[in-house]
């Protein structure tokens, strides 16, 4: 398993999760966990995904996701999980 973390933040709108999930499915990426909140119209979402079976290189997946974010006026990122694990766990 190769874990990555997807974060999407910005103004809430219809279809954020749908579009993100569709993109992940097309690219062979399995979702392990999702958490999200909407506070005062501000959307924050995090997914833990497994990119082991991804059909495209990791950098391309990250770029594709960023583009979906741009189209929706949000910031969408896909980063390898180690950066978060290293920073927040000993």
């Amino acid at each position, binding site marked *: 398993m190769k874990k990555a*973390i997807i*974060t999407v*933040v910005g103004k809430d709108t219809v279809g954020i999760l749908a579009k993100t999930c569709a993109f992940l499915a097309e690219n062979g990426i399995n979702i392990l*966990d999702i*958490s*999200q*909140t909407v506070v005062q119209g501000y959307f*924050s*979402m*995090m997914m*833990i995904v497994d990119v082991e079976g991804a059909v495209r290189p*990791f*950098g391309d997946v*990250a770029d594709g996701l960023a583009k979906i974010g741009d189209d929706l006026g949000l*910031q969408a*990122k*896909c*980063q*390898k*999980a*180690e*950066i*978060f*694990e*290293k*920073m*927040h*766990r000993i």
Partner: protein
Amino acid sequence: MINLSEAIETNKMIQDENLDVRTITMGVSLLDCADSSLETCCANIYAKLLSCAGRLVKTGEAISRDFGIPIVNKRVSITPAAIVGASCCKRPEDYVEIARTLDRAACELGVNFLGGFSAVVAKGMTPADELLIRSIPEAMAATERICSSVNVGSTKTGIDMDAVRLMGEIVKATAERTKDADSLGCAKLVVLCNAPDDNPFMAGAFHGVSEGDAVINVGVSGPGVVKYALEQVRGADFETLCETIKKTAFKITRVGQLVAQEASKRLGVPFGIIDLSLAPTPAVGDSVADILKEIGLAHPGAPGTTAALALLNDQVKKGGVMASSYVGGLSGAFIPVSEDQGMIDAVEAGALTIEKLEAMTCVCSVGLDMIAIPGATSAATIAGIIADEAAIGMVNQKTTAVRIIPVIGKDVGESVEFGGLLGHAPVMPVNSFDCERFVARRGRIPAPIHSFKN
């Protein structure tokens, strides 16, 4: 399992608070490139650099993309060039040829700076060391990406005052030789005491002879992150203040450690050290001065500055040491003037003087850094400033450095623009009383008593 708020916190540090990895610096030994023919030596150097560091920039970019963390600089440091060229360089011009070769290699590798056009002369200069030092003004003018450093003293050896005097002249000559670019050559030249062998930061980076064939050293940064964390505990007691800095430094350094290990693995080069430094840039929100202000000073330079900086420097180390398996380099808060908007503001407001900066260098890394002084300043005065800084380093068993720019044709009240990461600087006044008879003395200052530990 990582939770949403932790993921958002990390990305906020990167996006809003300028968290980045400041540099991945590959140290490369050029000891095996030495030859009695200058041409062969240069060919060896070029080939070795390309074979060792050929994938450095691309690998850095790939790591940056995978983890979503900016890696600002990819750089190379080399064995002090004075040693590499010792058997083939008979004139200063020969060393300039080596500098040109290094510049070509740096350009081909795509690194923005290559450090190590250096001489380590803490106790005395060999003829080769002196030739290299005398070649510095021309080498700085003839190259774009080469950084030069000269180590003139150490706690163990004392201070080589002959080298100090010579460096006063060389700094002046470098300023003169690059006067068309506001004496920019001096921004790439630093005079050190107790220079570390594994420093990843320019302009003082070189790959010391105590190092292996190649190594990956990483310099982390993140003054903006510390500043933001301190905003959240405004007015709190010193315990809270220190704990907040420590925890933040820990988080920043863990990212550096991750990047260093990843770079080491992907490049097949051993991991050397993490340099725990708060390195500012001229960008808004990326300032060490702003942290000092957040701690409670109207401007750096106000009474209390040295204490605040000492506290900051110590907490950064305490947090960082826990977060990394190997720590080295300079490791401390940097206080350059031109590279930190808050420092520039403090100078322009009249709060910060060279003398106060000198006091600040007693408690942090590294020294008088990126300070523009009047072009008319004499070589003896510059040597005097270098001697003072070296003495602070020697006695306090720490690295100190001088990177000052006597801007030819400019005086106090004017300012100078270096551009990019080097920033801009107001020309600062220098104490004009004479020290000529002091620096004219020959020989060296003996090592201090507390260096005799055997």
